[in-house]
């Protein structure tokens, strides 16, 4: 309803139809191109349905798993494009939608996505779930040594990792590094460190150290967690340094501070709260990760869990898991408390 005052001020448009600005019509030509892209994806899917091998130029063939029914995929893509065109969605967004559908179709085919087998395979899961509902409570206390090792590993890896990560971050951010070349090089090295998953590091260090007379131990786990932490802390902290308030930095420069003094007095105090909170967060990640890394035998609670799992004693596994969830929640609450206290 239009109030009288506005109606007086502005002459109402004829009848009750308000003229709304229409969103601009997207270019039909580009949409045609997108339809062509959909067709291309369909042809590729169709082709690799036959042979499955795609040439990877210097190295030979790579198998791409083709979706089962490329025709359905094509129809889905065309319908989505039509809907986008009807809704006057911009060409980039339509391209994004198309890319999303193609990617999902490929990924779904690759993992063989189906939910039809769930009812017939449910009997495999039921005994495990029952065991998880009825954990062996008395077992929790018997693995306390392993818990001690896990938490110690997490503490050591976090402290050393944060220290190294801070130094790397100082060199990685263009704000605080001596020159652009250094910052680029450190950034590249850091993204290499980050791209190897934590289990990859664990396997590497188990292989490096396990080959010696010292055998397996928490050392490999600590080194793996260390690399994992350095990657995360260096990335997060260097991005915090990028966004630092330039005032103190300029003041330090103007008063003739050298690089170390500038970083120590103008940048470090600004990033310290963020840095501490990343450290606490990484500590939490470490406890979770060390449970997972037990699979490859790096000591701590994870290896105890894998041992029980290999013996099919799910009641004990369930006890460890419940303790794990409780410990992670406790660490989470503790770090939230410290964060609130510090920030």
């Amino acid at each position, binding site marked *: 309803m239009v109030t009288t005052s506005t109606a007086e001020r502005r002459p109402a448009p004829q009848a009750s139809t308000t003229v709304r600005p229409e969103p601009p019509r997207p270019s039909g030509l580009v949409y045609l191109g997108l339809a062509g892209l959909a067709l291309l994806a369909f042809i590729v899917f169709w082709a690799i349905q036959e042979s499955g091998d795609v040439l990877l130029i210097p190295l030979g*063939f790579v198998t*791409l798993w083709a979706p089962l029914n490329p025709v359905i995929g094509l129809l889905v893509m065309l319908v989505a494009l039509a809907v986008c065109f009807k809704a006057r969605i911009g060409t980039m967004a339509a391209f994004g939608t198309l890319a999303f559908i193609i990617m*999902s179709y490929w990924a779904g085919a690759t*993992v063989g996505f189906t939910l039809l087998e769930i009812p017939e395979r449910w009997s495999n899961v039921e005994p495990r779930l029952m065991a998880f509902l009825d954990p062996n409570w008395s077992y929790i206390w018997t693995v306390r040594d392993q818990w001690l090792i896990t938490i110690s590993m997490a503490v050591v890896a976090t402290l050393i990792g944060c220290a190294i990560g801070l130094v790397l971050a100082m060199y990685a951010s263009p704000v605080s590094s001596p020159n652009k070349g250094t910052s680029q090089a450190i950034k590249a090295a850091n993204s290499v460190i980050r791209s190897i*998953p*934590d289990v990859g590091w664990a396997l590497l260090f188990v*292989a490096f150290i396990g080959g010696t007379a010292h055998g397996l*131990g928490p050392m490999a786990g600590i080194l793996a967690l260390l690399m994992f932490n350095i990657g995360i802390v260096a990335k997060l902290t260097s991005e915090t340094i990028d966004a630092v308030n330039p005032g103190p930095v300029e003041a330090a420069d103007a008063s003739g501070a050298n690089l170390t003094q500038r970083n120590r007095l103008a940048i470090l105090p600004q990033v310290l709260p963020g840095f501490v909170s990343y450290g606490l967060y990484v500590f939490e990640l470490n406890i979770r990760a060390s449970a997972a890394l037990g*699979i490859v035998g790096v000591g701590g609670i994870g290896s105890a869990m894998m041992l029980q799992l290999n013996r099919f004693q799910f009641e004990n*596994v369930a006890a460890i898991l419940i303790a794990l969830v409780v410990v992670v929640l406790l660490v989470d609450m503790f770090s939230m408390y410290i964060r609130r206290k510090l920030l």
Partner: protein
Amino acid sequence: MSNTRLNAGPGSTSQAEPRFAEDALDRRPVRPSKLRYNLGMLAVGIIFIAAVYGAGMDFGALLNLPASIIQYGQLMAAGVFQFPDETVAGYWTQSFDAMFESVAIAWVGTMVGALFSLPMGFLAARNMSPLPVYIVVRFVLSVIRAVPEIIFAIAIMLPLFGFGSGGGGALAGAMALGVSSIGTLSKLISEAIEAVDGGPLESSRASGSNQMQMIRWAVLPQVMPEIIAIWLYRFEVNIRASAILGVLGAGGIGSLLSTVFGAREWDRIGIVLVVIIVVTMLVDQISAFIRHRVIHGGDARSDGGEPQEDDDAPGPGPEDGPRVQNDPAPKENRAAAGL
């Protein structure tokens, strides 16, 4: 008077009376006590030493580490740089196959997580759902976040879908990643929704829309770019996380890693690591580009018009100004790091 102000320094311009040294001529503020800071550092040091003993670290192992790194590193480099004859080309192919499977696992897992995280995010946002629902959903989410992915995989998904790369292992891994993604994704999405600008909410309520209409027209347009960025971040995290599931038998690069490490074939290990690094960095770059585009580029948000080439250009449009008030970097960073 103004002189005093000046000497008091920029920190003490508040109403509280600044503390000065005894000497009235030297009007510099007293240095704050560093006792608490020092005590904190001392406590950290004690905890560190205790933890070093508690973990039972064997420092003798470190002595041989550089030598073995050099030795095995040379073996790996020799494996990577050897001429790809038929066998070696087969290794490369196998590695790329497994890595692509990992990417697919991560993608499906992220989609499953995304599907559930959107409604859960709305239920966990304080400004969108009633208090009892909010508390219950928050609790469920924090429990999901506390459980590592491998547990979903071991307990439910692997027996449900089967093991192995060819069999249901990949699907099991994807479902485990999806379920464990729900916790983080929903938390980040709910934080994005809570930070939404209240103006459109009020105006949609004032014009008589119901809850669904309000979500569709006032909330989603504001948070959708950020949510897409959060999903993409989780995709990157899931690629790394899928490796650990693979070691358990969920297919992908993890299965291959555990195979080659089990056989100690260092040339193959080198090839697999190079493939992991290359593909992961590539996916990260693409995803970072899309995220930047979605958050900062105006045209990706259904404005129509032609795509702009430089998305750092000052004006995607004046109406986009208040939307991107501050870079949501820290929050997303945590998502990136794998919360």
